[in-house]
């Protein structure tokens, strides 16, 4: 057997996602352009045009249709891909729920971006967090390498739990940033990702007269179906860990499953965040540790399923400082969700970096110090 070596190169996050999708060998790709997602599907259409990828690439008139096309294809047994951002994601909203409710194993990249008004193409997490109740599994990458790895893993996850999976990556910070990356050989991806079962969730085939989606005779049937989606998310927690470990054995990179733990041993304080800026937060943790502050970091790789058990390991910390790159009228989304596990006593929710505002390691360090000292008057802090 020939030696299988990974290709070392440097790519933008969007191109890394496109390569991962290509290596997953989807049958049907459909998308609509929106900054900063566009270069993903431009690259994929280039692969298809050159004959390097045998997918059908379908241009559509809207994001709603992009998801509708891949929904139809996924229900008919195809492996599929779409991608969007911000307003495009919101234009998909009805289809998002229908896809999850149909247990369609779609993979979608969400390149996170601020929502208008005013028009702003920069990074923020409000878009991806706004779909957290739809039934999709939702992950966020923290590097170009992880954007690649998560995309490959997302197919395995989607087809294991029969639910759609969204892979988030920060607009520009990852989507348009070139970083060093290792691309595993195609054989490794093929081994990790066997062909999907085209008869799940339903066998939609000529000659098989079944109907999906007509009105239930008993609403309890529908209720049971909805509960099954909840149960699938609970089961997915274990599956995500197993997939990450198996991928780690094959490709040499393991991230820790639902969360990544960083310097948490012996910590009295914890930082919780997700996405590309966690790298800057880690720099802050390093410098705080050098200053003698016993702080660690938990990076959320998934927000759905929600890592309740992992967060529970932070119980007993003097302070848990959650950084939200999103804002709602009730504060930050993650802060509120983390507080639902740990209680408000120890949690400080710092809303920062919204609308694409830069937030550096120093800013993290300052905020953590102030939170530890109890200098913020409220448990929700808008920086």
């Amino acid at each position: 057997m020939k030696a299988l070596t990974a290709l070392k190169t440097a790519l933008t996050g969007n191109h890394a996602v496109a390569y991962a999708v290509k290596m997953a060998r989807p049958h049907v790709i459909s998308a609509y352009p929106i900054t900063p997602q566009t270069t993903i599907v431009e690259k994929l259409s280039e692969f298809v045009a050159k004959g390097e990828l045998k997918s059908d690439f379908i241009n559509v008139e809207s994001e709603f249709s992009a998801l509708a096309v891949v929904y139809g294809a996924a229900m008919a047994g195809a492996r599929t891909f779409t991608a969007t951002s911000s307003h495009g994601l919101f234009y998909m909203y009805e289809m998002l729920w229908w896809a999850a409710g149909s247990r369609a194993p779609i993979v979608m990249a969400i390149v996170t971006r601020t929502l208008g008004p005013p028009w702003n193409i920069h990074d923020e997490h409000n878009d991806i967090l706004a779909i957290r109740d739809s039934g999709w599994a939702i992950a966020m990458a923290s590097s170009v390498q992880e954007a690649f790895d998560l995309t490959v893993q997302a197919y395995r996850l989607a087809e294991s739990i029969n639910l759609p999976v969204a892979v988030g990556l920060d607009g520009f910070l990852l989507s348009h940033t070139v970083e060093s990356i290792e691309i595993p050989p195609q054989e490794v991806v093929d081994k990790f990702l066997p062909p999907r079962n085209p008869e799940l969730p339903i066998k939609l085939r000529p000659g098989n007269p079944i109907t999906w989606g007509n009105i239930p005779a008993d609403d309890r049937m529908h209720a049971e179906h909805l509960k099954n989606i909840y149960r699938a998310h609970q089961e997915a927690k274990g599956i995500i860990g197993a997939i990450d470990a198996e991928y780690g054995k094959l490709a040499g990179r393991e991230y820790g499953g639902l969360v990544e733990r960083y310097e948490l041993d012996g910590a009295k304080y914890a930082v919780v965040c997700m996405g590309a800026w966690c790298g800057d937060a880690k720099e802050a943790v390093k410098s705080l540790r050098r200053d003698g502050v016993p702080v660690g970091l938990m990076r959320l790789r998934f927000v759905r399923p929600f890592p309740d058990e992992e967060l529970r390991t932070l119980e007993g910390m003097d302070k848990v400082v959650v950084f939200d790159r999103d804002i709602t009228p009730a504060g930050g989304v993650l802060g509120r969700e983390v507080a639902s596990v740990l209680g408000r006593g120890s949690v400080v929710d710092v809303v920062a970096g919204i609308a694409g505002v830069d937030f550096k390691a120093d800013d993290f360090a300052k905020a953590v110090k102030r939170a530890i000292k109890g200098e913020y008057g409220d448990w929700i802090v808008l920086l």
Partner: protein
Amino acid sequence: MESVLVPVSRPDVGSGGLTGTWRTLRPVVHLDKCIDCGICWLYCPESVIDWERGQKIKIDYNYCKGCGICAHECPVKAIEMAPEGGL
């Protein structure tokens, strides 16, 4: 995870209930007048009329909603809409 992922429906009669009970008028076939043309079968929106050339037509009164299209379209008026008996 191997449980039924989505609860699909399968074709069956009576998906809308015992729809024969909706009827206020009942199609009564006068077979002596029937010319075996199949028009009633073709237009019946409910598929409750059985027809095969050379065989007498049969109506499934369990599900016939009594719309009366068959009687109206019959070219020889071999079907008559008669009032259903009250309860």
